[in-house]
């Protein structure tokens, strides 16, 4: 089995990153936006892993980074969702477009 070249991998991760970003810009539901962020983070994780695997297999930096990113993403999501829930209580909506009272 031939090895998949790194460029393929990178293509996937980059695509994932920008898909996530697109989602972040276009979705109006806050939860969906969070999911989009997760996509972006995951693309980063793929990056780390493939760089580690393909380019610098002698050290484990990338892998470790990935683990920490996953952890922190979870924590971030938890806090974010808590905030969103709280927001829902006061706004009765989790539509990001409607949360624009603070402006100018």
């Amino acid at each position, binding site marked *: 089995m031939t090895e998949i070249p790194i460029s393929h991998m990178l293509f996937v991760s980059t695509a994932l990153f920008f898909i996530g970003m697109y989602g972040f810009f276009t979705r109006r539901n806050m939860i969906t936006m969070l999911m989009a962020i997760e996509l*972006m983070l995951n693309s*980063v994780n793929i990056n*780390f892993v493939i760089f580690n695997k393909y380019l610098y297999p002698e050290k484990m930096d990338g892998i470790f*980074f990935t683990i920490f990113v996953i952890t922190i993403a979870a924590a971030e999501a938890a806090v974010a969702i808590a905030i969103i829930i709280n927001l829902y209580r006061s706004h009765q909506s989790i539509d990001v477009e409607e949360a624009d009272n603070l402006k100018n």
Partner: protein
Amino acid sequence: MTDQLIDFFLLMKSELLLLAVIFIMLFMNITAKENADGTPVDNNHSILVTANILLLLNFLAGFFMNTSGNLFGDSFTSTELTAFQKNILNLGTLLVSLQSYTWLKTHKHVMEFYMLLLATLLGMFLMISSQHMLLFYLGLELSTIPLAALVNFDLEKKKSAEAAMKMIMMSAFSSALLLFGISLFYGTMGTLHFQEIPAALNGSDLQLYCLILLIAAFGFKISAVPFHFWTADVYEGAPVPVTSYLSVISKGSILFVMTTVLYNVFAGMGVEWYLIICVLAVATMITGNIFAVRQQNLKRLLAFSSIAQVGFILVGMSGQNTEGAVSVTYFIIIYIFSNLAALGVISVVSALTGKEKISDYKGFYKTNPMLSWILAIALFSLAGIPPTSGFFGKFFLLLAGAGNGNYTLVIIAALNMIVSLYYYLKIVKAVFMDANEEPIPTINLAFFPKAGLLICLIGIIVTGLASGSYNYIQELFASL
């Protein structure tokens, strides 16, 4: 083994002490007594006294037994400089804590406030000491995520929730971009260790792109234009003490890190980041000032003014010499005092009357002369008027910036000072000159806020006139 252990304790002294405080708080929270009907006993005052005393001790402890050395495979470092920077943040936190007394006294979740607050501080400490991107990233996130929760700390307020949402969304977005940058860095260099990066820098386009992403992440935290949009909304929506914390401590810590990272780690790409910083500085100063001119809400105004201040700091940072680093650090101290004094007054007034508009402050002098003077002096310091220390801070920042030969930048900065003076004076005008039918009633300050404000006031006056602090920072940087 014992030696190592002692070293470990000494090197991580700040972090460990902070952890200890957090755990004491946690313990107190767990063991909190409840009333017969299950509601917690209202012992806020004693909690606040304890917390403030602990923070004071923490701050005082920061002066002693600072050693230098590395830990965790050289990814954590502690030097005199980091110890000093951490202690600056300790002081700032103490001041914020003192000033939040009025607000917290009637709040239901005092303990949680402190735990979250100190957790972010811990994150900043880690960040300052980090010698590895991983640790840096961990510190960054640790200092951001609890802050979002803090922004939402007035749970019942609509604005608070919205602000928190904006903050968490934006910080998640920015950290995603930062991580993307770091991952690419990793790809190009194979290492994320600060000591190894300089050798691995080759100035390629990809690395430059990564650097831009890194600076953008910094820019987000210090609210440099165009990464600043969240700032005003969050500052306005958050409870005033949190705003204070965000605007000085959080920003200050990032600026410390940014100085270290740019000056030491990315010195090899100095030409590139210098230009980026210049562009950001100009954009930040101008935008911050322009937006601040027409604000009616004081918190929002100070948010934009703090953006403008960051512009000035970036000018200093663009100096790329020891003076640059020194003046940035020095200015942060001054900025902490000045901004906390201004926000401290606003915090007290806001907590007691809920008034935050400039027009509410008309005739303030008539009822609260002392607070008015403190506010005015703080604003003068922010505007850079002598004999307040703000003058010295700004002067040295711009001097450092000019030291690199970029006089245009300095001219733009100098002109921006005029605009900034305008909106600061607008507040002063409302306070001193305008008559008001219903001025804010006379406020009786509790001991803690009063102490906090006085410390700020002394700091504002002394830090500049007495050259000691500047010379000390200079020595710290020179010894690196």
